């Protein structure tokens, strides 16, 4: 797109972010690092807790082989610092003197203890921005509840609307199911990244830093679409149902199985345009149907129960007639917003995502090659806005570099290491 358009991968270049804490805030750091901030992961000498989360490259748990740590620490640097040791405070102060932002995530009590130290830093340097990411925020009656991704998605409201539909008697015989992949922490971190960017902008306007208190619980609560308005305005508690929107009553299924066994998300909006596209698709695929008959001639007739049943049966036969990817291409060519249910890895070789740079090839010398990481949500027309180039750091990989920048001499660094402060 030439002049006026360029990727934002360096938009936050020059800003330094220290990231303390556990896995709850790591995605926030990754997002800022993808926009050019220098993000320094501050780990205890034994390594960040997320280094113990699987899956692991080559199976067995090892702090340098956690794919979780790899994915959520791209582009970052690593320093070790034992913040539980009071002797670490002056080191943190000197390192933070070069920082614009401190992110700290974890249980509120632990983060609140460290906040006291950050407030001293802010007293000395009011431009500093400090962002706490905790399960419920830094105050409130549930502040100290012990939480995991699962329990957060339960309390925040996402889980109650996800899972399988009830039986004919209206009774659920399966539990609600939390969508997989750490979405509680994604949501908390996304709001943290937005808020930090906003605070940086505010600092440019005013010269002032500030404190940010992100509640993961509240972040999840903002993310359930019409679930909450349905209750607030209409008194309706929506019912979860398989792979489609929870709603007041049980709706017809959206997933249909293709000839190759793969599911397709295939639904028809009650418009003439979509109905005609469906008829055309049935004809093109040689699937017999009766949808040209009088009973389907207008939206009112098509809305009748009998007609609906026939339309859905035809839809089932249509999807079952071809492999999922073929149904996808044929339906989309006619303007139907259908898609196959792909597994995440099936997009690695997809030409669309390859061209958009949706995955970044990150060099892993220890593996003797590259790994493709999910790395983009947007392009400038040609290149992805987020810019990921460097694999996650090895534990303490940059301690020497960061401490030297903070003014420590080599012998001082050695002494800190000997005292297990770093």
């Amino acid at each position, binding site marked *: 797109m030439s002049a006026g358009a360029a990727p934002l991968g360096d938009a936050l270049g020059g800003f330094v972010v220290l990231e303390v804490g556990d896995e709850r805030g790591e995605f926030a750091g990754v997002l800022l690092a993808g926009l050019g901030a220098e993000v320094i992961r501050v780990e205890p000498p034994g390594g960040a807790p997320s280094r113990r989360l699987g899956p692991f490259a080559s199976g067995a748990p090892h702090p340098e082989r956690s794919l979780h740590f790899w994915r959520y620490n791209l582009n970052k640097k690593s320093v070790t610092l034992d913040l539980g040791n009071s002797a670490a405070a002056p080191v943190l102060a000197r390192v933070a003197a070069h920082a614009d932002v401190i992110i700290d995530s974890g249980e509120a009590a632990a983060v609140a203890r460290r906040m006291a130290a950050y407030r001293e830093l802010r007293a000395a340097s009011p431009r500093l921005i400090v962002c706490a990411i905790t399960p419920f925020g830094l105050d409130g009656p549930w502040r100290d509840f012990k939480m995991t991704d699962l329990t957060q998605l339960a309390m925040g409201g996402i889980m109650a609307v996800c899972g399988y539909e009830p039986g004919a008697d209206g009774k659920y015989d399966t*539990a*609600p199911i939390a969508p997989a992949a750490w979405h509680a922490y994604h949501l908390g971190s996304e709001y943290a990244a937005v808020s930090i960017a906003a605070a940086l902008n505010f600092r440019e306007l005013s010269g002032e830093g500030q404190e940010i208190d992100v509640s993961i619980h509240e972040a999840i609560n903002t993310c359930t*679409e019409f679930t909450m308005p349905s209750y607030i305005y209409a008194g309706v508690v929506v019912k979860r149902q398989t*792979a489609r929107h929870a709603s007041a009553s049980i709706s017809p299924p959206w997933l249909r199985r293709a000839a190759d066994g793969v599911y397709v998300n295939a639904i028809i909006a009650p418009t003439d345009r979509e109905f005609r596209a469906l008829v055309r698709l049935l004809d093109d695929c040689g699937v017999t149907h009766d949808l040209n008959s009088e009973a389907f001639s207008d939206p009112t007739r098509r809305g009748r129960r009998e007609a609906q049943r026939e339309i859905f049966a035809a839809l089932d036969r249509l999807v079952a007639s071809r492999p999922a990817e073929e149904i996808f291409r044929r339906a989309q060519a006619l303007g139907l917003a259908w898609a196959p249910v792909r597994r*995440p890895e099936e997009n690695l070789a997809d030409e669309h995502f390859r061209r958009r740079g949706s*995955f970044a090839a990150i060099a892993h010398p220890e593996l003797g090659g590259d790994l493709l990481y999910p790395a983009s949500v947007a392009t400038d027309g040609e290149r992805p806005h987020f810019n990921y180039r460097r694999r996650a750091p090895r534990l303490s990989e940059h301690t020497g570099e960061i401490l030297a920048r903070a003014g420590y001499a080599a012998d001082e660094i050695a002494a800190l290491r000997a005292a297990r402060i770093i």
Partner: protein
Amino acid sequence: MADNKRRWALEGVRVIDLTWLLAGPGGTRILASLGAQVIRVECREPRAVDFLRYTPPFPRKDKSAPAQDLGMLAGTPANGFNRSGNFNNINPGKFAITLNLNHPKGRDLLRRLVARAHVLCENFSPERMDQWGVGYAELRRVNPSLIYVQTTGMGKAGVYRDYAGYGPTAQALSGLTAMSGLPEPREPAGWGYSYLDHSPGYYSSMLVIAAIMRRRKTGQGCYIDLSQTECGIMLSGTAALAHQLSGQPTARHGNRMPFAPWAPHGAYPCRAEGDPGDEWIAIAVQNDDQWAALVAEMGSPVWAAEARFADAAGRKANEDELDRKLAAWTSTQERYALMARLQARGIPAGVVQKSVDRFTRDDQLRARGFFVALPQSEIGEWPVDGFPARMTASPAFVGGLTARGAPMLGEDNERIYREVLGIESAELEALKAEGAV
């Protein structure tokens, strides 16, 4: 009225908001909460009005009235376009004007607005703005430092540029649907709402703020071609990485934890509070101490002392049996009391809260003032979701500059056309009569 003493993170930023439904408006909601002047630009032609303005829920006459049947598609709402609760929740803090892009004078007005703005957001189908002659290439000539955000299902650049997509389409294609649910041979359970209508808003607002900072330094504008499906890919965790190393297809695990030896780890039934009940508690035991605490809370039943449950590996290996035994106990318990007792013992546990629970029983949301009551000009005061981050110097406020819920269609025509473009009432009336506004 707007609070004049409030200091905003996005002071002075003007956003022309052509978005509709949720994938676009979610992002401008965040920008409005941070103090940007967000001007919703809508066509008053019924067929072109934001579909969300048509959708239930609508306010009950009185809040004690029985629950409504939401229906799915309401057609033209009998009561006009200003009563949707869903629309109200997604569009607070925004101004609204009407403008007809099918009219040449409407397109001219848009160009004039863009010349006086920093950001334009839209989520039409990929070619729509180009067809009107007001795509990025054209508007950049009007405003070279414009930040232009286009949110689409697949992304405007690439093989699928002409493909249509909504949240569920993007969830299916990206891998998120496949990842969630019980293991094969069960079908995926996926998502009970459009997660990928929400996610683009987080990224569009983040990228816009980054672009605003760059613009201040360099004067440079920005084109942002944002893809809902790519948001899903970004949020698929370690699945694609693991596959590259193991060659194994990504599997579903229900509520179980495949990445650490945590068990029990799931949702367990609680005492029913209605017929049929749907009450559950999520419990996640991460270590031996938490397990010992759970056993004590259960009253140390004989089964829990069996050797096979003594360590994490054993509990994981016998998870089916463990889940059955635990569920038999939880199903006799009242869910909130059980949560309190488990939490008192340091065990991660949380009620699977439904909307009604979050609104009426969540002490934390209440204490933090999460729901914010805002006046909407036609339906009165209603609570909307708050902003989940407190900021000490430039606090976010979902009422934004307007201190209102969602705007009525064209509610701010007089004010915005006058303040931004210097168009006075008489001229505005003429533009309306011509069908441009």
